């Protein structure tokens, strides 16, 4: 039958209410989809914090702990890896490259990372992206520093800026290496990873600023080594905090991991960054589940709105139903009419919701990129999203069937008598 034009016109007749219902559904659908997109993107951004590194080696502790301090620069290492071990590893025939990381100092709340040129050559994140400079270059001189995009933005630094590194990780550390100031020589392009929040110097520089320090305290005045004198000294470090390893052949990964973990010379731990990232996400991921649950509940509330709107209209439409019956509409038609109205409203709401998701993203994209250096991706609709939308339509159909059934029963009981 040609019920559809009837449903359309009936909806148009009640466009104010229908519009509001569509809006409330759109909002709830947009929220659900945004939450999904957000957690998907958070997950993939998280997973792409580091890539291309086959093993991370640190002193023996927890694997998540090692990942946190070496990659996310969160927390601190309880122990170090000896320099001789690093040298052995770097020369190992199965190892393609080994990046030493030395952490522990900070600059105005941002961690300072001591490393070498291999870092700029081999470090990868995201989809095999390497470190690129927005301005300047990698450190060449002993007192050169390179800063992440967020450091540059937050502190307003440009190349040429003189900075002083503080001892320890706290932002309020009073012990500063004020006698050995650094010059910012490069700014790294935004990466959306912890690199953005890091000040990079050379390993030797870390050694140099600690030459005259003993057990976390600067040496008394007379025994200080000046910045120039430090250049003459042997700046080979005793130890590093962690080592990132790239292997010549991925097949060797587990074998190397096992031999490092079983190394007798010192207590070490080697982890596979991908696996540990996943373990970490499964802890953080609960938030994702909670957000999704909220999204689903809001969507359910949207459906209840739809149900309420239709139920409320039923009484005033009783006459309309009786008229339709008298011109030949069967109760099944009445049922179909109401269900199709419900589905129509839900589908429109869904459509607007999807558009809202794009709109919200279009608005959020430049803001997020400017504020966090994160480039939000356009929604990548997955089968899950499709399933959610289909499920939503099904739920709307079922919700619409409730008032439709009521109208159906009523149209049978009322017959053709038109009641006010």
């Amino acid at each position, binding site marked *: 039958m040609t019920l559809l034009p009837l449903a359309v016109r009936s909806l148009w007749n009640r466009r104010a209410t229908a519009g509001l219902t569509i809006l409330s559904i759109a909002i709830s659908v947009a929220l659900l989809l945004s939450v999904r997109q957000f957690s998907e993107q958070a997950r993939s951004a998280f997973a792409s914090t580091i890539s291309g590194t086959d093993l991370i080696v640190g002193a023996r502790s927890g694997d998540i702990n090692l990942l946190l301090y070496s990659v996310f620069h969160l927390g601190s290492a309880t122990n170090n890896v000896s320099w001789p071990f690093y040298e052995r590893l770097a020369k190992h025939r199965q190892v393609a490259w080994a990046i030493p990381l030395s952490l522990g100092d900070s600059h105005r709340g941002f961690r300072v990372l001591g490393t070498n040129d291999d870092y700029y050559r081999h470090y990868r994140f995201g989809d095999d992206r390497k470190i690129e400079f927005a301005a300047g270059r990698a450190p060449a001189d002993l007192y050169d520093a390179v800063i992440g995009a967020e450091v540059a933005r937050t502190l307003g630094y440009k190349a040429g800026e003189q900075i002083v590194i503080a001892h320890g990780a706290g932002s309020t550390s009073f012990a500063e290496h004020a006698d050995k100031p650094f010059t910012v020589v490069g700014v790294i392009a935004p990466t959306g990873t912890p690199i953005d929040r890091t000040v990079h110097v050379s390993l030797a520089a870390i050694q140099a600023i600690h030459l005259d320090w003993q057990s976390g305290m600067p040496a008394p005045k007379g025994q200080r080594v000046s910045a120039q004198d430090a250049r003459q000294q042997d700046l080979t470090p005793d130890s590093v905090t962690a080592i990132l390893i790239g292997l010549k052949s991925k097949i060797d990964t587990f074998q190397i991991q096992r031999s490092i973990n079983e190394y007798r010379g010192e207590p070490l731990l080697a982890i596979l960054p991908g696996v540990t990232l996943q373990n970490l996400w499964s802890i953080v991921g609960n938030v994702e589940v909670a957000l999704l649950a909220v999204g689903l509940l809001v969507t359910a509330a949207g459906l209840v709105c739809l149900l309420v709107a239709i139920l409320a209209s039923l009484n005033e439409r009783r006459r309309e139903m009786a008229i339709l019956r008298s011109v*030949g509409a069967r109760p099944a038609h009445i049922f179909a009419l109401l269900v199709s109205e419900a589905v129509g409203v839900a589908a429109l709401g869904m459509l607007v919701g999807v558009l809202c998701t794009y709109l919200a993203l279009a608005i959020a994209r430049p803001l997020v990129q400017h504020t966090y250096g994160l480039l939000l991706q356009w929604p990548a609709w997955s089968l899950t999203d499709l399933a959610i939308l289909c499920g939503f339509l099904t739920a709307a159909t079922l919700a619409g069937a409730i008032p439709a059934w009521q109208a159906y029963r009523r149209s049978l009981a009322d017959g*053709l008598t038109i009641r006010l």
Partner: protein
Amino acid sequence: MIELNDVRFSWSGGEPLLAIASLQVARGERVFMHGPSGSGKSTLLGLLGGVLEPQRGSVRIDGFELSAVKRSLRDRFRAEHIGFIFQMFNLIPYLSVLDNVALPARFSEQRRKRAADISGSLYDEARRLLAAVGLDPTVYADRQATQLSQGQQQRVAAARALFGRPQLIIADEPTSSLDADTRERFITLLSSECRASEATLIFVSHDASLRSQFDRQIALADINSAARLETAA
């Protein structure tokens, strides 16, 4: 055309309301049926329209045994063969006048075909009927149904009932919301249109003064023995 035999009807669990031993209406006859309020006139029309089912007896329209078939068949039969006019508020508020008149075509294949045969297209037939009930289609066709006066709305309802030439027109107090003048004109119009389309007309009212315009008049009390039983008891 209409044949009722030994029909009994009571609303669920209630007293018997209708007990009609026999009622026959010939094809093309225009019948006026009257009776006091609450006497069961609308209920009888519900039986004729196949909306209600008698507990006993048979209701035949045009040789079709309504009381013997399933509800869906009765619904279809009503759509194809019967045009209804009610007391008031006959129109779907969100449809235009023209769409209201052509509404039966959405549910009945036969009426759609017949309407198209008569005037060439559905909307042409709807316009013809509007003109026939005295509403200039160029003025009223695209108006919203709610923008018409009561009398105009009833005329649109009549046009709709006549749309696609159903064999039977059932009018349940279609004039009780109209003033005396409009009422006269409406009845004259309905009668002549029914004659033109050779439809049988059952016109119900509690106002016996309208009877003169019809071929035949029936007092419900005369054919309904349930009422007599009740008054006797």
